[in-house]
């Protein structure tokens, strides 16, 4: 973040005013001025197995936390202080979510490449490819395909996802209408409603299509114009969230 001298002075005054007043409106102005920093830092942590949207959210909350804790009289630049806070929160997010395991870059790249290949091969073959077919097409061994599959979805207990496919996610979200009768049917199942209601709408819809309508991942991917592997990640993440929510002590 860089501001000209006038802006710096203005921000400094706002910080001092906020430190004494904790006025929400003032904080909103400050958040608006620094949200780019949060997004920038979130992107630095992308491709480590958490969706970018989630990381931006974590970083944004950390930014708000930084505003509340910042003491302008100490003479430290807010951007320096906020960077430290946001990075700390992002690291904590990965640790809490069990994302300490970082897949090797080679495997991350292979995973992304495979995701595209699967889509192409589904078109050519008219069905989901086997691992052997995929390995041959990608010119890697089957072990590497399987390793990439696991590395890309190095999911664990609390949350799971793979390289942040925000573009795909946005494309999917854009295709979701505001009203969806079939989704409501699933949500109306009394015993399932509280659990499913905790998921974002797009995840609920994909979960519904796979587990209630019986569509394959490839079919769902085709309907939404996203990769099968992205559908897989969204399903896996949703199921993990549901499991976590269903834990007695959650």
């Amino acid at each position, binding site marked *: 973040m860089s501001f000209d001298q006038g802006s710096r002075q203005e921000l400094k005054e706002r910080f001092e005013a906020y430190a004494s007043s904790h006025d929400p409106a003032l904080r909103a102005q400050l958040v608006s001025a620094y949200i780019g920093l949060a997004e920038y830092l979130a992107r630095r942590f992308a491709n480590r197995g958490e969706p970018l949207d989630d990381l931006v959210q974590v970083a944004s909350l950390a930014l708000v936390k930084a505003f509340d804790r910042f003491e302008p009289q100490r003479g430290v630049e807010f951007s320096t202080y906020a960077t430290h806070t946001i990075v700390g929160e992002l690291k904590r997010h990965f640790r809490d979510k*069990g994302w300490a*395991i970082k897949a090797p870059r080679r495997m991350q790249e292979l995973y992304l490449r495979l995701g595209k290949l*699967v889509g192409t091969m589904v078109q050519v073959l008219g*069905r*989901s*490819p*086997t*691992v*052997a077919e*995929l*390995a*041959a097409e990608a*010119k890697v*061994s*089957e*072990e590497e*395909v*399987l*390793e990439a*599959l*696991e590395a890309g*979805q*190095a*999911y*664990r*207990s*609390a949350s799971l996802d793979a390289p942040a496919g925000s573009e795909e996610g946005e494309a999917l979200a854009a295709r979701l209408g505001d009203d969806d009768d079939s989704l409501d049917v699933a949500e109306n199942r009394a*015993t*399932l409603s509280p*659990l*499913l209601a905790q998921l974002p709408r797009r995840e609920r819809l994909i979960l519904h299509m*796979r*587990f*209630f309508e*019986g569509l*394959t*991942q*490839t079919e769902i991917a085709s309907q939404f114009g996203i990769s*099968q592997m992205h559908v*897989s990640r969204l*399903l*896996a993440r949703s*199921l*993990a969230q*549901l*499991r*976590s929510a*269903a*834990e007695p002590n959650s």
Partner: protein
Amino acid sequence: MDDGDEVTLVVPARPEFLGLVRVTVAGLASRLGFTFDQIEDLRLAIDELCFGLTGTKGKDGTLEVRFVLDEEGLAVHGEGHFAAGGTSGLSELSQIILGALVDEHSLTAAAFGPRFSFVKKREGPTTRQNPPGEGQ
């Protein structure tokens, strides 16, 4: 499906070891010529059942998973050996999820903890002839 090759895996009953179970089931399903879609289903099924046994925080003890391969498909039998024993049940949602992912499934109580099994039948185009890594 009990006359085929068998692979048994014993891991600590903690979430960080379930990746090994997923990799194993994916590798074995690949040998059987399962499609990518089916392999993803198996990985989700493993997660659903194993987490059903261990919870998301894990348990003291081990998880023994036995994979049985044959021409029809893959049968997976899991058993928890937990210090505290105990049983687990499948939620209605888990039942629905597993019903969509595999052909048969069950979860019962055993002496030292819960026991599960599921069967996924092969629907791939061909049964593999070559060992992994020699198909290129």
